[in-house]
């Protein structure tokens, strides 16, 4: 029986990036790509459940959907869409740079991507804080933080016991008190619940994506990549693009009703 294990043999034959269980770098790369795609399938189905709930409730409460979507901040979301699409381009260019072995460009693109990702999260955070500020009775997040300009709340779009859909946007008009029971608002509340769940889950993915990008940047700084080995950049890029695709659907579904 041979005494040299495969691992030792492989470390000599190939670079250190080839893990012991693989025969060739191509095999390792293909396995990683396929594995990542299998994971992306999972991610798509994860959001699929939320989209399923969205379809059911939009079909059940079409008016509530239209009235609620009017209260979301579409201009900010449009900016966010642009930000994400640009970040998708920079990621694609980062993979391209890695493929060509251009470390400088790779690092620039990675940095740009992370910057755009952060921008997205900041804008998203502002959007969220607007909603929370209204619940707290403030006009906008800044007056909420400074504590000035507090007044009686007439709008709270955060689902929960305090949820209050503003009357002037409701189809019923303001004369009937009974029209504002929980049930009347259920469609509106479901819209905002799904809005927070879907965009929140998306934001969590974005944060994970930023973590992945930072790890890849560190690896790039340590010269771990070469034109023959850049699998982490590639599969990290796949993950980032998926986040982008999900936003491509969230944007028209929530903001452009």
């Amino acid at each position: 029986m041979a005494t040299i294990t495969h691992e030792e043999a492989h470390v000599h034959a190939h670079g250190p990036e080839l893990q012991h269980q693989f025969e060739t770098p191509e095999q390792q790369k293909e396995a990683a790509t396929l594995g990542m795609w299998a994971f992306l399938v999972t991610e798509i189905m994860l959001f699929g459940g939320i989209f399923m709930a969205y379809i059911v409730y939009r079909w059940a409460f079409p008016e509530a959907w239209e009235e609620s979507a009017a209260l979301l901040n579409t201009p900010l979301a449009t900016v966010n869409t642009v930000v994400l699409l640009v970040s998708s381009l920079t990621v694609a260019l980062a993979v391209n740079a890695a493929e060509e072995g251009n470390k400088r460009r790779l690092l620039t693109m990675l940095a740009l991507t992370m910057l755009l990702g952060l921008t997205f999260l900041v804008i998203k955070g502002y959007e969220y804080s607007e909603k929370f500020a209204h619940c707290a009775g403030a006009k906008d997040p800044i007056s909420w933080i400074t504590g000035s300009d507090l007044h009686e709340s007439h709008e709270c779009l955060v689902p929960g016991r305090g949820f209050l859909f503003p009357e002037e946007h409701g189809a019923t008009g303001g004369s009937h008190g009974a029209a504002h029971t929980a049930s009347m608002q259920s469609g509106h509340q479901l819209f905002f619940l799904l809005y927070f769940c879907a965009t929140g889950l998306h934001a969590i993915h974005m944060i994970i994506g930023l973590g992945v990008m930072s790890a890849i940047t560190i690896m790039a700084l340590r010269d771990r990549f070469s034109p023959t080995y850049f699998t982490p950049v590639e599969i990290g890029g796949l993950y980032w693009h998926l986040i982008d695709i999900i936003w491509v659907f969230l944007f028209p579904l929530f903001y452009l009703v």
Partner: protein
Amino acid sequence: MRDFPLFPEQASTFANQVDQLYFFLVALSLIFAGVLPFVILYLIVRYHRSQKVDRSNPVDSNLKLELTWTLIPLALVMLVFFWGAFLYVQMRTPPARTLDVYVIGKQWMWHVQHPNGKRENNELHVPIGQPVKLIMTSQDVIHSFYIPAFRIKQDVLPGRYTIMWFEATKPGEYHLFCAEYCGTEHSLMIGRVVALPLADYERWLATPGPVVLPDGTIDTGQAIVAPSIGDPMAAAGARLFTNLGCLGCHAMAGGGVGPSLQGLYGATEKLADGSTVVADENYLRESILNPNAKIVAGYAAVMPSYQGQISEDQLNQLIAYIKSLADTGN
């Protein structure tokens, strides 16, 4: 000796039909599950390694054989599918003329109200030889109304009506179970179904008796009227209709702020968005609790919601009343 049944009683028109299909399935199963083990036993004994038998030319595939044991089971399952499907559609389609009984499920009891206003808890009296339709809803979680002797079961959901129908054939007392797990005392959410000849049923209907209402109050003196005369559930609904001021908008002659309810039940309504809807119990329920979900064409969305203002019980009465308007309208 305690009785030790191995087969449930057949007490509805469905029971025999379901049992026939069941026995057919059992027979099919016996052909497979009864014969296949013997084939296997034969093979493992005959071809045990200690047996000197002919093992030459073993086969490891045979398309004809594969097709045989694909297509024959396929034909058989298609047969039972269509058999079951026809029966299922029948079991889910109540006939036009039924005796309507309203059922409310709550943790952990069944509350039943008959058309004449007679109420009962954890019991259901029904006449035999008469199709009975149960219009069921739940106050809390999902329950399931199950009468094994009738071979019928239907989940009872909060927030909507589900419908189940049957025709009892044999006088007697049968089990009534809640079949969908509904919390701590799920297994105590049981009762009995009493099937009576029509005359006995009518006599029973006319007997007043105290009953605990779903909201916990005790109703001692029920207004019981002979079933042939009138419809006190509808009468209670009519009172409610007046007291809530519904008549102010829904004038019987039409021309009010809201559409007339005369002859509404069972009719097809044209809605503001161009679609149509059949006015059944669930539509009436929704229109009372969430009036703006479906606006009848030509009317404005001005009706307030009565969600939280009336109980399931009162809702049942209102619906019984609106249904009675259809009867006179015809």
